[in-house]
């Protein structure tokens, strides 16, 4: 089990008040901003930017940059690892 991905799911549930969901409900490759996935919107995208800074110390100042990074849990984890390695 990838602990970064598990942590991300917990953090997302808390930051976005997804009270009905548990970690097990979010697939690693589920599309976060698609209605078939979590159905998040532009306000959530901003909350995710806050989450990245708060829990992972990563600053993302251009919301456009988030679009690619926030596709799924997989892409978020990858983005975090890349930024931390840099």
């Amino acid at each position, binding site marked *: 089990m990838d602990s970064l991905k598990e942590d991300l799911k917990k953090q997302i549930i808390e930051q976005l008040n997804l009270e009905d969901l548990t970690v097990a409900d979010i697939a690693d490759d589920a599309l976060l901003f698609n209605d078939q996935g979590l159905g998040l*919107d532009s*306000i959530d995208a*901003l909350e995710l930017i806050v989450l990245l800074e708060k829990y992972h110390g990563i600053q993302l100042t251009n919301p456009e940059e988030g679009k690619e990074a926030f596709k799924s849990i997989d892409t978020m984890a990858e983005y975090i690892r890349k930024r931390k390695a840099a």
Partner: protein
Amino acid sequence: MGVCITGIGVVSAIGMSVDENLSALREGRTGIGPLHYLQGTKASLAGEVKASNDELRAALGVGTEYVSRTSLLGLQAAREAWGDNKRSGVIRTGIISATSVGGMDRSEVFYKDYLAQSNPDYRLLTTHDSGSTTERIAKELGITGYINTLSTACSSGVNAIMLGARLILQGTLDRVLVGGSDALSGFTIDGFRSLMIYDDQWCRPFDDSRAGLNLGEGAGFLLLEGEKSIELTGNKPICNVSGWANAADAYHQTASSPDGKGATLAIEHAIRRAGIGLDQISYVNAHGTGTKNNDHSESVALQNVFGDRIPPFSSTKAFTGHTLAAAGAIEAVFSVLAIRHNLIFPNLNYRTPIAETGLVPATQLETGVEVNAVLSNSFGFGGNNSSLVLTKYE
């Protein structure tokens, strides 16, 4: 005769009066710069009114310290619009103001001390609620009876003018002072920063490189009178409030719809209400905040309504900053000035058209045109879209 505008007043980053604002608009002089009076915020640029609270209180003769800057700015503009008019037992007079945060400028001072448990002054909260902002202005002017406040985020100011016009047409009031006021606060600056639409550089409405807004502060007021009132006051009408509309975008909490649905409805209905043709609109004072989303959506709405025959348009927010609930009222005053002096104001900081829409705003002050009718747009959070049509008094 309809609903006439017989008095105007304005205070903004570009001046303390109608004359000062007009000079700055003519000279292309912005009021946006580093903050001087409001300290401790993270904004690098804002459109601050160039006076402290103490200076405003002294100039306005307001004794109490328990008054919000929102009320002081409102009173400054309302007094100018009210002019030498007298109270009357015969003319039913009301006041409608608009504000988004009311006395937040005072409340945040309280709350900071409250959190630090450092002897917070609870009396600062007596000016918190938006209604009290208007009650204070009404009290200073001696207006009693119909006193009301609207709060629909950034469209509030236009909505106050619209409600005032309707009250006169329905015979509920004979004259009504309408407008809006908002002071800068750490709360709103942080709010727009949290949305990542606060530009640390000078805002660039309708430019392809636009990256957000600069907040501003100020107030605008207009005195509206119906036929009966004008017969008694003898005031000379400057303009007519001819058309208005409000429509909900019902698309998203903050974002405007990509097809500009709510904005299109508001513009179309306002022009229809005015009973004039699309080609009779001489100038559009756009909402044009400088955010990616608004300026795109508004451009699409203008194309929806006017096709390829869009009248000269500009946003004046690069002069004043975005003054939230005051914006619609301040820009209505600017629209009156456009008609009165046959002017089209420049859209500062514009260089390159937005790629998707290709619209080009007016970039130079135009003086040689006849301005008979102005459309002024104000769009707010929650998809609240309002448009106003002002016409030359014939």
